[in-house]
């Protein structure tokens, strides 16, 4: 870029250019590094490790691929109940239990690999292989009275006067004055297809396929669709709402922006004042940002998908207006002149001279925004309370249904990738169609 002056000392000039270049190549990384150092302290990254909660992380990760079944005894009434994840929706009907729990006067819980826990009328026992039998007695006055086979407790037993917690690789036993609880961990997502009250729960795939073919398809699908634990019906609706928000917002914005873009384009709006006003309008709606529009709209229209759609619509009217008017300014005048030479009126000139030129560009921009708005709609939905964004934030706030969070994220990613694929495919076809048309 810098021209060498042949009349001067070439060597000196070259060296000075090299020096400047070298300075530049060192200065940029140095500035970036300095900025990152500033951020490192401004964001308090060193304090982050102190604040980070490793237990949260562990429970999150283990919850992603496993679930636990609670076997709970109320120490006062002696009632034993078995529930998946301890939730009401996952509770086994009264008097029934999975095969590894034997209900009776003495409830025997087999945690496999030799770990056996019993809830007796008086005593609770836990037999750990290679360690020995522990017995516990819960009494109103003395708390939890324990008898261990060793004198010094290993670190996987956590005991105090009123509380004992034992964690082994087979499961967890926790005893308090009020209740005794055993957690057994299983890999997988619990009750994903059928809840316990469905007759199809626990059937093998072959058996199910047989029933499916022999006329029970409706009942099977309805049991999956109405699953109370995973709420597949609500989730599908929510995903649909999110896509709907993106669709309504993007298309509505495009419809509004197209006529306005003509007013902002140099070659179509002769009045400078109109052009200026329209452009500032676009800048304004774009600048106010989806967040502020969301807040304002929520006040007017309440929570729900419509509010989200309108927030996208208003923000994107500004973006589309700017993009469309730039496209219009690049329109080739020759075609319009050609149409005019046949005696066409202004509206006809727009229809046959301008629209065919801009359609592929416009459609490709709209499709691109549609895809990117599907993602935005998730975020906006979390604020306006519509669609999958709402379900997602709810699941995250409860801080225990991480498997549901994984489920929603997987669905969102699949839908966004699908929209990306569809929009990319259509855009390529549009551009190709455009080329063959010439």
């Amino acid at each position: 870029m810098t021209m060498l002056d042949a009349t001067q000392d070439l060597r000196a000039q070259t060296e000075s250019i090299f020096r400047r270049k070298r300075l530049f190549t060192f200065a940029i990384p140095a500035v970036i590094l300095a900025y990152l150092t500033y951020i490192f302290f401004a964001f308090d990254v060193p304090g982050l490790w102190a604040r980070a909660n490793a237990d949260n992380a562990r429970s999150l990760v283990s919850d992603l691929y496993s679930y636990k079944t609670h076997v709970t005894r109320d120490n006062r009434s002696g009632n034993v109940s078995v529930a998946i994840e301890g939730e009401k929706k996952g509770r086994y009907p009264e008097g029934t239990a999975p095969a590894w729990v034997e209900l009776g006067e003495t409830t025997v819980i087999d945690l496999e690999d030799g770990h056996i826990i019993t809830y007796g009328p008086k005593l609770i026992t836990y037999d750990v292989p290679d360690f020995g039998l522990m017995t516990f007695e819960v009494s109103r006055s003395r708390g939890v009275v324990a008898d261990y086979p060793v004198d010094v407790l290993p670190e996987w037993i956590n005991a105090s006067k009123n509380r004992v917690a034992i964690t082994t690789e087979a499961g967890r036993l926790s005893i308090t004055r009020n209740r005794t609880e055993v957690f057994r961990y299983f890999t997988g997502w619990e009750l994903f297809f059928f809840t316990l009250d469905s007759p199809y729960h626990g059937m093998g795939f072959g058996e199910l396929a047989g029933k499916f073919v022999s006329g029970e398809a409706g009942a099977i699908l309805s049991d999956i669709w109405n699953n109370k634990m995973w709420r597949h019906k609500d989730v599908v609706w929510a995903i649909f709402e999110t896509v709907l928000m993106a669709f309504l917002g993007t298309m509505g914005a495009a419809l509004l922006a197209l006529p306005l873009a003509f007013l902002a384009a140099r070659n179509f709006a002769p009045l400078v004042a109109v052009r200026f006003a329209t452009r500032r309008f676009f800048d304004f709606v774009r600048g106010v940002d989806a967040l502020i529009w969301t807040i304002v709209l929520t006040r007017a229209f309440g929570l729900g998908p419509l509010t989200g759609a309108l927030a996208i619509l208003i923000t994107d009217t500004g973006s589309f207006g700017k993009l469309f008017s730039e496209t219009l300014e690049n329109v080739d005048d020759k075609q319009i002149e050609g149409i005019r030479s046949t005696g066409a009126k202004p509206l006809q000139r727009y229809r046959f001279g301008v629209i065919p030129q801009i359609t592929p560009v416009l459609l490709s921009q709209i499709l691109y925004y549609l895809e990117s708005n599907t993602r935005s709609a998730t975020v906006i939905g979390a604020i306006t309370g519509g669609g999958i964004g709402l379900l997602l934030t709810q699941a995250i706030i409860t801080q225990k249904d991480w498997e549901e969070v994984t489920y929603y994220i997987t669905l969102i990613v699949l839908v966004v990738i699908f929209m990306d694929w569809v929009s990319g495919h259509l855009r390529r076809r549009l551009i190709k169609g455009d080329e063959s048309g010439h």
Partner: protein
Amino acid sequence: MADLTQHPGRVNDIQASYMAQVGRKRLYSGITMLVFVLLMISGFNLASSRNGGSFWGGIDNFFDYPSEVVAEAASKAAEMPAHFATYFPALLETVNIAAVATLIGALMAIVLSLLSTRGLARFPRLIGLFRRVMDITRAVPEIVVALILIFVLGGGPVPAMIAIAIHTAGALGKLFSEVNENASLKPLEGLESVGANWTQRMLLGVVPQVAPNWLSYALLRFEINIRASAILGFVGAGGLGYELKVAIQWGQGRFDEAGAMFIMLFLTIVFFDQISSHYRDKLVHGAKGKE
């Protein structure tokens, strides 16, 4: 031409088939339009019915909230400068989150894009893998990563920063690799012939060719990330968005603060929007000038 006039029957045939084609085309576009309009109307009605308040019920109240905010802000106009000063650190944090996320995301995007461009890739067999990585990081909405990280790391700017950086890496990576595809391979061959390794070939052969376009996309991303950072603040990641949420939940009495923050956010976005479009113009036109 002369032929056509001598055979009026053929001209009529041609006209008839042309008109038939036009008619068919009109019919198809008519049907497409009709389907589109029906989709829009039914979608609108559906969204309206699932909404807390209906569209027609709410349209009258549209200006209620803004006018309340404006009225209260105007009545306390003297306190406005103080509010600007109070919330400036929060604004700075929001902008910083966006800036760091864009920086880190762009650096990751550079590596990902170089690894996934045919002709440049270090491991040509893994191109597909790196492309899928970009697809997935692009598809995950920022809010998901942010909320999960808030659960693990606690609130503050870092979760938002990481979340935006991850998304930026995917989004920019795709655009960067499209730019890379147009880079000339000749400088690379030259560098290879003198024994340059992959990193040197990329740094000296590719980066100078594509840097202006990369920078232009990164600037656009920065502008988008400021908006994202404000929104993430609203769901608990710190910065101006968080302060805004607190002020709004308080409601009347703190509308002047909310108003001040609206103005600050608006001005910031417009400011960076103008700067980024100015420099992008310059970069793209500068690149054109060289050719």
